Protein backbone atom coordinates (compact mmCIF):
# COMPACT_ATOMS: atom_id res chain seq x y z
CA UNK A 1 0.00 0.00 0.00
CA UNK A 2 1.37 3.36 -1.00
CA UNK A 3 1.10 6.00 1.72
CA UNK A 4 1.69 9.73 1.72
CA UNK A 5 1.48 11.84 4.87
CA UNK A 6 1.86 15.58 5.16
CA UNK A 7 1.65 17.55 8.39
CA UNK A 8 1.96 21.06 7.10
CA UNK A 9 1.52 24.74 7.80
CA UNK A 10 0.66 25.37 4.14
CA UNK A 11 -2.95 25.62 2.89
CA UNK A 12 -4.50 22.43 1.52
CA UNK A 13 -5.07 22.74 -2.24
CA UNK A 14 -7.62 20.07 -3.09
CA UNK A 15 -7.35 20.44 -6.86
CA UNK A 16 -3.58 19.79 -6.77
CA UNK A 17 -4.10 16.74 -4.56
CA UNK A 18 -6.86 15.33 -6.79
CA UNK A 19 -4.80 16.00 -9.93
CA UNK A 20 -1.86 14.09 -8.40
CA UNK A 21 -3.98 10.94 -7.87
CA UNK A 22 -2.51 7.71 -9.22
CA UNK A 23 -4.75 4.68 -9.73
CA UNK A 24 -3.81 1.41 -11.35
CA UNK A 25 -6.20 -0.36 -13.75
CA UNK A 26 -7.60 -2.66 -11.04
CA UNK A 27 -8.79 0.18 -8.80
CA UNK A 28 -12.45 1.17 -8.98
CA UNK A 29 -12.87 3.57 -6.05
CA UNK A 30 -11.22 6.77 -4.89
CA UNK A 31 -12.88 8.14 -1.75
CA UNK A 32 -11.74 11.43 -0.33
CA UNK A 33 -12.79 13.55 2.62
CA UNK A 34 -12.14 17.19 3.38
CA UNK A 35 -12.48 18.46 6.94
CA UNK A 36 -13.20 22.20 7.09
CA UNK A 37 -13.07 24.60 10.05
CA UNK A 38 -16.60 25.59 11.14
CA UNK A 39 -17.59 29.03 12.40
CA UNK A 40 -18.90 27.54 15.65
CA UNK A 41 -16.78 25.61 18.10
CA UNK A 42 -18.29 24.45 21.39
CA UNK A 43 -21.22 26.85 20.89
CA UNK A 44 -19.10 29.96 20.33
CA UNK A 45 -18.32 31.85 17.14
CA UNK A 46 -14.67 31.68 16.15
CA UNK A 47 -12.60 32.95 13.25
CA UNK A 48 -9.92 30.24 13.19
CA UNK A 49 -8.46 27.20 14.93
CA UNK A 50 -4.81 26.97 15.92
CA UNK A 51 -3.70 23.33 15.49
CA UNK A 52 -0.76 21.95 17.48
CA UNK A 53 0.89 18.57 16.89
CA UNK A 54 3.44 16.43 18.68
CA UNK A 55 4.72 15.82 15.20
CA UNK A 56 7.13 12.92 15.69
CA UNK A 57 4.54 10.92 17.59
CA UNK A 58 1.76 11.96 15.20
CA UNK A 59 3.76 10.58 12.25
CA UNK A 60 4.38 7.34 14.14
CA UNK A 61 0.73 6.92 15.13
CA UNK A 62 -0.43 7.60 11.56
CA UNK A 63 2.01 4.95 10.35
CA UNK A 64 0.55 2.43 12.84
CA UNK A 65 -2.94 3.23 11.51
CA UNK A 66 -1.77 2.82 7.91
CA UNK A 67 -0.37 -0.60 8.85
CA UNK A 68 -3.74 -1.62 10.32
CA UNK A 69 -5.54 -0.42 7.17
CA UNK A 70 -3.16 -2.39 4.99
CA UNK A 71 -3.96 -5.57 6.93
CA UNK A 72 -7.74 -5.08 6.82
CA UNK A 73 -8.47 -3.85 3.30
CA UNK A 74 -6.93 -4.27 -0.20
CA UNK A 75 -6.03 -0.61 -0.45
CA UNK A 76 -3.71 0.61 -3.19
CA UNK A 77 -2.94 3.99 -1.64
CA UNK A 78 -3.75 6.33 1.22
CA UNK A 79 -2.92 10.01 1.29
CA UNK A 80 -3.49 12.27 4.29
CA UNK A 81 -2.76 15.95 4.78
CA UNK A 82 -3.28 17.61 8.17
CA UNK A 83 -2.67 21.28 8.69
CA UNK A 84 -1.08 22.69 11.81
CA UNK A 85 -0.91 26.33 12.86
CA UNK A 86 -3.76 28.79 12.31
CA UNK A 87 -6.51 27.57 9.96
CA UNK A 88 -9.31 30.08 9.27
CA UNK A 89 -13.04 29.31 9.12
CA UNK A 90 -13.98 27.72 5.77
CA UNK A 91 -10.42 26.54 5.18
CA UNK A 92 -9.56 22.84 5.05
CA UNK A 93 -7.74 21.41 8.06
CA UNK A 94 -7.74 17.78 6.89
CA UNK A 95 -7.73 15.95 3.56
CA UNK A 96 -7.80 12.16 3.32
CA UNK A 97 -7.97 9.93 0.25
CA UNK A 98 -8.19 6.15 -0.03
CA UNK A 99 -7.90 4.27 -3.34
CA UNK A 100 -9.18 0.68 -3.40
CA UNK A 101 -10.76 -1.80 -5.80
CA UNK A 102 -14.34 -1.19 -4.54
CA UNK A 103 -16.24 1.61 -2.83
CA UNK A 104 -17.16 -0.43 0.27
CA UNK A 105 -13.60 -0.92 1.41
CA UNK A 106 -12.59 2.59 0.37
CA UNK A 107 -15.37 4.22 2.43
CA UNK A 108 -14.75 1.88 5.38
CA UNK A 109 -11.01 2.47 5.40
CA UNK A 110 -11.38 6.25 5.10
CA UNK A 111 -13.87 6.30 7.99
CA UNK A 112 -11.59 4.06 10.08
CA UNK A 113 -8.58 6.29 9.52
CA UNK A 114 -10.39 9.48 10.51
CA UNK A 115 -12.08 7.91 13.56
CA UNK A 116 -8.81 6.42 14.82
CA UNK A 117 -6.89 9.63 14.11
CA UNK A 118 -9.32 11.49 16.37
CA UNK A 119 -8.67 8.94 19.13
CA UNK A 120 -4.92 8.40 18.86
CA UNK A 121 -2.97 10.95 16.84
CA UNK A 122 -1.57 13.73 19.08
CA UNK A 123 -2.97 16.82 17.42
CA UNK A 124 -4.94 19.44 19.37
CA UNK A 125 -6.95 22.50 18.48
CA UNK A 126 -7.27 25.86 20.16
CA UNK A 127 -10.20 27.98 18.90
CA UNK A 128 -9.40 31.64 18.15
CA UNK A 129 -12.37 33.98 18.73
Amino acid at each position, binding site marked *: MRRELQITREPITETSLVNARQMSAGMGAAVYFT*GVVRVQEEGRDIHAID*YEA*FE*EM*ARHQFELLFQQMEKRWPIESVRLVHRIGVVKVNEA*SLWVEVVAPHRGEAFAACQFLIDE*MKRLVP*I*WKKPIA
Partner: protein
Amino acid sequence: MTIQVHFYSYFKELTGTERVMQELPDGSTLGELHRQLIVRFPKLEPMRKSTLLAVGVEYQGLDHILQDTDEVSLFPPVQGG
Protein backbone atom coordinates in the same frame (compact mmCIF):
# COMPACT_ATOMS: atom_id res chain seq x y z
CA MET B 1 16.99 8.71 37.68
CA THR B 2 15.98 11.83 35.81
CA ILE B 3 13.09 11.79 33.37
CA GLN B 4 12.50 14.51 30.81
CA VAL B 5 8.80 15.40 30.64
CA HIS B 6 7.05 17.32 27.85
CA PHE B 7 3.60 18.93 28.08
CA TYR B 8 1.36 19.58 25.10
CA SER B 9 -1.80 21.58 24.34
CA TYR B 10 -3.34 23.35 27.36
CA PHE B 11 -1.21 21.29 29.74
CA LYS B 12 1.48 23.88 28.93
CA GLU B 13 -0.82 26.57 30.37
CA LEU B 14 -1.74 24.43 33.40
CA THR B 15 1.91 23.83 34.27
CA GLY B 16 3.37 27.09 32.93
CA THR B 17 6.05 25.19 31.01
CA GLU B 18 6.65 22.97 27.99
CA ARG B 19 9.30 20.76 29.55
CA VAL B 20 10.59 19.78 32.99
CA MET B 21 13.03 17.31 34.47
CA GLN B 22 11.64 15.05 37.19
CA GLU B 23 13.75 13.05 39.63
CA LEU B 24 12.43 9.59 40.47
CA PRO B 25 13.77 6.47 42.22
CA ASP B 26 15.16 3.87 39.81
CA GLY B 27 12.50 1.40 38.65
CA SER B 28 9.63 3.87 39.02
CA THR B 29 6.55 3.45 36.88
CA LEU B 30 4.79 5.91 34.63
CA GLY B 31 2.00 6.03 37.21
CA GLU B 32 4.47 7.12 39.91
CA LEU B 33 5.80 9.83 37.61
CA HIS B 34 2.24 11.01 36.94
CA ARG B 35 1.54 11.22 40.70
CA GLN B 36 4.73 13.22 41.28
CA LEU B 37 3.85 15.61 38.48
CA ILE B 38 0.38 16.18 39.96
CA VAL B 39 1.98 17.03 43.31
CA ARG B 40 4.32 19.44 41.53
CA PHE B 41 1.62 20.89 39.24
CA PRO B 42 -1.72 20.58 41.13
CA LYS B 43 -3.65 22.07 38.19
CA LEU B 44 -3.14 18.73 36.43
CA GLU B 45 -5.23 16.95 39.11
CA PRO B 46 -8.70 17.57 37.54
CA MET B 47 -7.37 16.04 34.31
CA ARG B 48 -5.87 12.98 36.02
CA LYS B 49 -8.24 10.38 34.52
CA SER B 50 -8.27 11.74 30.97
CA THR B 51 -4.54 12.45 30.72
CA LEU B 52 -2.75 10.55 27.96
CA LEU B 53 0.82 9.43 28.59
CA ALA B 54 3.45 8.50 26.05
CA VAL B 55 7.03 7.28 26.36
CA GLY B 56 8.86 8.40 23.25
CA VAL B 57 6.26 8.08 20.47
CA GLU B 58 4.27 5.19 22.01
CA TYR B 59 1.32 5.31 24.38
CA GLN B 60 2.03 3.44 27.61
CA GLY B 61 0.02 2.36 30.61
CA LEU B 62 0.60 3.50 34.18
CA ASP B 63 2.44 0.27 35.05
CA HIS B 64 5.15 0.90 32.44
CA ILE B 65 8.57 0.87 34.14
CA LEU B 66 10.64 3.89 33.20
CA GLN B 67 14.28 3.93 32.12
CA ASP B 68 16.71 6.76 32.82
CA THR B 69 16.80 7.94 29.20
CA ASP B 70 13.02 7.95 28.66
CA GLU B 71 11.25 11.06 27.44
CA VAL B 72 7.67 11.18 28.65
CA SER B 73 4.86 13.29 27.23
CA LEU B 74 1.62 14.25 28.98
CA PHE B 75 -1.33 15.67 27.13
CA PRO B 76 -5.13 15.94 27.12
CA PRO B 77 -7.37 13.91 24.78
CA VAL B 78 -6.42 14.49 21.16
CA GLN B 79 -8.60 16.55 18.79
CA GLY B 80 -7.27 16.25 15.25
CA GLY B 81 -9.35 16.82 12.13
